[in-house]
């Protein structure tokens, strides 16, 4: 059966929910991990979840995994609602989802490279939207947005995402091969 990018059927409803719950749980579970010599930078290996769910299940699933997962994680942690950051996290999942239809084996060099490229674009755009919104909400100027919001957000997200995404893609390829799904 041909894959459709923007389909949102039963399968997508379920995987969007699983992606969001996973992102929330793994964010909370790895909250305590700190970057060496950068104690103030939030380190979130779970950021790979929206990217991975986007690459495998498409842009809507990726978006919901990031958007809703961030909301749930903040809900449990008691940080409140920050729509613009939730939206940014959604975009991190949405952009890699744009290549989901072209994914074939998930463990080939080509698939992994495309996954990495689109995930990088997703982080740059998603965190860009979230950071720039601070100009409107908080009245921050561009230098503050770049140095206090954008760079501390994209650097750990890119490091985590780019290392963990290929590992998850290779593991998923093994599951697809074994289960024939």
């Amino acid at each position: 059966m041909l894959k459709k990018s923007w389909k949102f059927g039963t399968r997508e409803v379920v995987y969007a929910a699983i992606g969001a719950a996973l992102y929330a749980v793994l964010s909370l579970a790895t909250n305590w991990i700190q970057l060496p010599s950068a104690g103030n930078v939030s380190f979130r290996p779970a950021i790979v979840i929206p990217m991975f769910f986007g690459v495998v299940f498409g842009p809507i699933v990726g978006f919901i995994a990031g958007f809703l997962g961030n909301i749930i994680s903040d809900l449990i942690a008691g940080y409140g609602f920050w729509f613009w950051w939730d939206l940014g996290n959604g975009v991190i999942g949405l952009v890699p989802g744009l290549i989901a239809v072209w994914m074939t084996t998930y463990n080939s060099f080509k698939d992994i490279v495309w996954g990495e490229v689109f995930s990088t674009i997703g982080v740059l755009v998603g965190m860009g939207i979230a950071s720039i919104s601070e100009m409107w909400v908080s009245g921050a100027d561009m230098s503050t947005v770049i140095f206090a919001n954008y760079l501390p957000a994209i650097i750990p997200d890119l490091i985590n995402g780019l290392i963990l995404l290929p590992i998850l893609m290779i593991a998923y390829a093994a599951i697809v091969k074994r289960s024939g799904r």
Partner: protein
Amino acid sequence: MLVTWRYRLRNGLMEKFDPRARWIFSLAFLFAVTLFWDARFLAFFFIIAFAWYFSSRAKWKETRRGWYLIGFILFMMIVINTIITGGGAGGVVPPGGHLVWAQGGTIPLVGWQFHFGLTWERLWFAICQLLRIGAISAIFLIIPYTMDPRVYGVTFRGLGLPDRFAYSMELAFRYVPTLARDFGTTLDAQRARGYEIERVKGGIIKQIVRIAPLIVPVTMNSILTGEDVTNAMDLRCFGTRPRTWLQKLTFHWQDYALIAFSIILLGGGIITLYAFHLGNFWVPEFWLRLAGG
């Protein structure tokens, strides 16, 4: 791993309102407050926000973690924005102004001269930022403590979101405890094999790779479970008709009053700013007198 929701019934005034009305109010408040940089208007919004916040009956002990985070963000913004960078504050503060240290200063021992561009206007802008971000934070921080997680799906459906998205939301909330339990089981199993997550030796890449034995099994296991859930839902003809929800939300008079207030707040804000040209950045006379201007 223990995952607990922050919500518990407190019988506060806030909980008397329908969650949909509360979302409408919160969003209208957000858009209204971001129209203004005049401290007099911002003080009005600040009072409303904290009156709303305190109507929840949430205790400081419960919410302090969120406030610490907001405090840290505020500190970073104000210190970097007003004191260190000296930039244009998003184009709000006009260029020039009254310097706080007009003479500059000298670093002892080395005798180097420095000039600090901090102005009294920018300091006033920092106070406005404090009022504005404080008010927005009070409105949005309190939501997880006062809104039942079971009603998020039906609330967003009621606000016009598609059925499938709302159901996905509902399902995600229900999955959280299951996945948290799976994560705990995986962590225990890996520890039994000698896995040490607490080891902090090694560089960033080593630390991230060390997370993989936790993330991969939990993710793959949940994907396999998802296939079974999808099949079960398909067999029950999911999505062929509009859904019904376990919880039913009904608007009461107080909800209509809150929605009307939200419309007045946002509509009034727009009229005040665009028709009367009031609410832009303003520095009071007494503040400039402090500057000697």
